[in-house]
């Protein structure tokens, strides 16, 4: 792993531009800060440096000083301190900024180096860009445009290597395209902690392979596809599905756990084709779990709910059901709802004077990017005041209330009551108003079902385990017969005699900013793409279930409580 940048700054000179960077920044990252691109393949900002691709060669120099007196040697021609350039180029990825370092990236020698490296990489490259899934986002393709010669001087036969080796259930290897940068190997070793990949054989026989008897099947294997600078590793799910240049990118948030990994949803004409991680150095670096990449399949699932009735008709019948059970209503909110939806759920609960329940979901945390709290937004429910203590996995209190006849109607906002411990007999005793995306036993038993949207079809915010407020945008439009959650909740609240609240996200945020002190400093529009850390002190006494994950350590006070 690259050492975290120390706060002391050093000044370096890159192509004549001076910039102060933290000591320990390498030349590629420093150059990026002044807008100079140093091409590279093997270097990745979140992995260790190996320096084997030789693409990032730059010229380095240090200001000349007298060896004895240490006095600066001036250049009479320019009147400035002379720079002693190292005669041979050095790799930028393994050179760290030091005070006074001079870097040249645009000289004839450097251009020569880059062209040479590109030519060597291309002699055995199959040049099958038309069938390669990486085309359009391939680093080799980009650098060949800049430093390739446009024709080949190689008259010998190209290497023949296996074209479709399955490294694991989700990753296919095309050995001919591999440029042996070892990014995937380092990722598996350093981040996924599952050291299964390696090179075997020497020279032009070198091949990427799995350790005998093992497969690249950890839950982070698809990150190797993302970081592969060429099309050697491809995803079985996305392979030959769509060219990347057709895809629209929408920033989103992974909903599979409270880590809240930042993602990009790639869609074309309302169809999502893949999900990839988005860099956020405070949350998920540049990684995400494989399981989160498949969540988009829920959008087009067979059991998706849709209704032919208008939203007005649905709300009217829901209001009828609830009015019949007045005074004996419970609301089951969700840790999967966005902050805005949870706020409206609370308002709805206030309007019908209902008690609010939330369902916890837990699973084993993997210590990387999946936490043990599998709800993305339990902290949002705390902030919006929907709940004031942590939820449990089973709705036993609610079940007791149903049995005793205290509760006659339940509003379920996206939760399946059966999986939370309510028996079918108990479901039969109550009338249910269900807001949900997919059919389940609760929607089957419900009197009124309002079909709502998945995270990909709406915009909103989640609060992750660090109390970081993160926003997601709408990637694809909803299909007919599905209704916006905010719209449905605000209409039902108004129909039940509650406050009239806006259903538009931006207007609703004005209300949120006014009513919730935790969100007073931001709005949806001004919220940065990397999220905003909220003040967690009001909830520091709660014992959250999460263990340690990437960039997250459970608060020390909790450790004390546990001890």
């Amino acid at each position, binding site marked *: 792993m690259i050492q975290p940048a120390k706060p002391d700054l050093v000044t370096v000179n890159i192509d004549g531009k001076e910039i102060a960077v933290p000591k320990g920044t390498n030349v590629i990252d420093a150059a990026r800060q002044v807008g100079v691109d140093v091409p590279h393949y093997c270097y990745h900002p979140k992995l260790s440096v190996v320096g084997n691709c030789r693409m990032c060669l730059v010229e380095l120099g240090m200001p000349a000083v007298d060896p004895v007196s240490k006095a600066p040697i001036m250049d009479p021609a320019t009147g400035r301190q002379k720079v002693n350039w190292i005669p041979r180029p050095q790799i930028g990825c393994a050179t760290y900024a030091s005070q006074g370092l001079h870097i040249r990236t645009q000289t004839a020698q450097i251009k020569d180096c880059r062209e040479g490296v590109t030519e060597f990489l291309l002699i055995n490259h199959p040049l099958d860009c*038309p*069938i390669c899934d990486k085309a359009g986002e391939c680093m080799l393709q980009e650098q060949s445009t800049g430093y390739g010669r446009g024709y080949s001087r190689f008259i010998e036969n190209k290497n023949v290597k296996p074209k479709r080796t399955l490294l694991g259930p989700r990753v296919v290897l095309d050995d001919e395209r591999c440029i042996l940068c070892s990014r995937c190997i380092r990722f598996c070793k350093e981040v996924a902690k599952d050291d299964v990949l390696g090179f075997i054989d020497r020279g*032009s026989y070198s091949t990427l392979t799995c350790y005998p008897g093992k497969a690249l099947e950890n839950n982070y294997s698809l990150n190797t596809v993302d970081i592969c600078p060429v099309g050697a590793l491809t995803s079985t799910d996305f392979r*030959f599905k769509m060219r990347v240049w057709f895809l629209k990118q929408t920033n989103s948030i992974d909903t599979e756990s409270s880590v809240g990994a930042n993602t990009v949803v790639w869609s074309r004409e309302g169809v999502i084709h893949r999900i990839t991680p988005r860099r956020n150095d405070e949350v998920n670096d540049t990684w995400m779990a494989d399981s989160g990449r498949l969540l988009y399949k829920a959008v087009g699932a067979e059991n998706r709910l849709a209704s032919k009735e208008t939203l007005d008709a649905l709300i009217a019948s829901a209001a009828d059901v609830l009015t019949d059970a007045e005074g004996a209503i419970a609301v089951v909110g969700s840790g999967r709802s966005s902050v805005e939806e949870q706020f409206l759920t609370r308002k709805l609960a206030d309007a019908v004077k209902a008690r609010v329940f939330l369902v916890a979901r837990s699973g084993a945390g993997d210590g990387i990017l999946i936490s043990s709290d599998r709800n993305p937004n339990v902290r949002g429910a705390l902030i919006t005041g929907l709940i004031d203590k942590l939820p449990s996995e089973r709705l036993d209190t609610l079940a007791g209330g149903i049995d005793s006849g205290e509760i006659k109607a339940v509003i379920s906002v996206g939760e399946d009551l059966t999986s939370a411990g309510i028996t079918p007999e108990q479901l039969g005793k109550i009338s249910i108003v269900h807001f949900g995306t997919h059919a389940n036993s609760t929607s089957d038993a419900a009197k009124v079902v309002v079909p709502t949207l998945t995270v990909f079809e709406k915009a909103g915010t989640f609060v992750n385990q660090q109390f970081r407020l993160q926003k997601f945008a709408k990637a694809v439009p909803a299909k007919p017969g599905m209704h916006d959650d905010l719209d449905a909740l605000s209409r039902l609240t108004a129909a039940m005699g509650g406050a009239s609240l806006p259903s538009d996200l931006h207007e609703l945020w004005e209300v949120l900013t006014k009513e919730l002190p935790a969100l007073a400093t931001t709005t949806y529009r001004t919220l940065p793409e990397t999220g905003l850390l909220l003040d967690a002190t009001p909830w520091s006494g709660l014992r959250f279930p999460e263990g340690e994950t990437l960039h997250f350590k459970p608060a020390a006070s909790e450790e004390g409580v546990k001890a």
Partner: protein
Amino acid sequence: MAIIPVDRRPLSFAERTYLPQIISGLSTTWKRLVAPKETLEYPEQRPEIPANYRGVPTLVKDPHGREKCVSCQLCEFVCPPKAIRITPGDIPADSENAHVEKAPKEFEIDMLRCIFCGLCQEVCPEEAIWLQKQYSMTGYTRAEMVNDKQRLYELGGTLPDDHFKWDRKKEAEEAAAQGGHH
């Protein structure tokens, strides 16, 4: 705007008889009656199509019957009126063209949208899409005017190939399997 007074001269005697106009008009008519015809009796007679004519875009196969398109979707990308729609797919591993790996599952060109610009032919890295000499596409419904993959290959047929790039690839693979160049 300035007003320009137009001088309206009275007609001369010859003009008032209309004879010069009638004679000059009839002379054109008589000349055309005896001159060779410049029109064609379409559709019985068909025009001569020049070699570089840009007619209906079609898909072609190589001389061995392999479909040349690998569904790279560059034509779909470059098409100005968005007439092309491709669904990519893979070639199963047991096919004799398995070494090509990728082929279109579906390929549609909407001839109601096509403007015969030829950019698809120009951009194709596999020389799989060609604008042929056919110029007349008709149909009774909109659906009929969308050429699907099967129809595109019917229209396109086979074109000679100078490169045989994929065949050479297969030969190299076979040579490597027998211990040639690795």
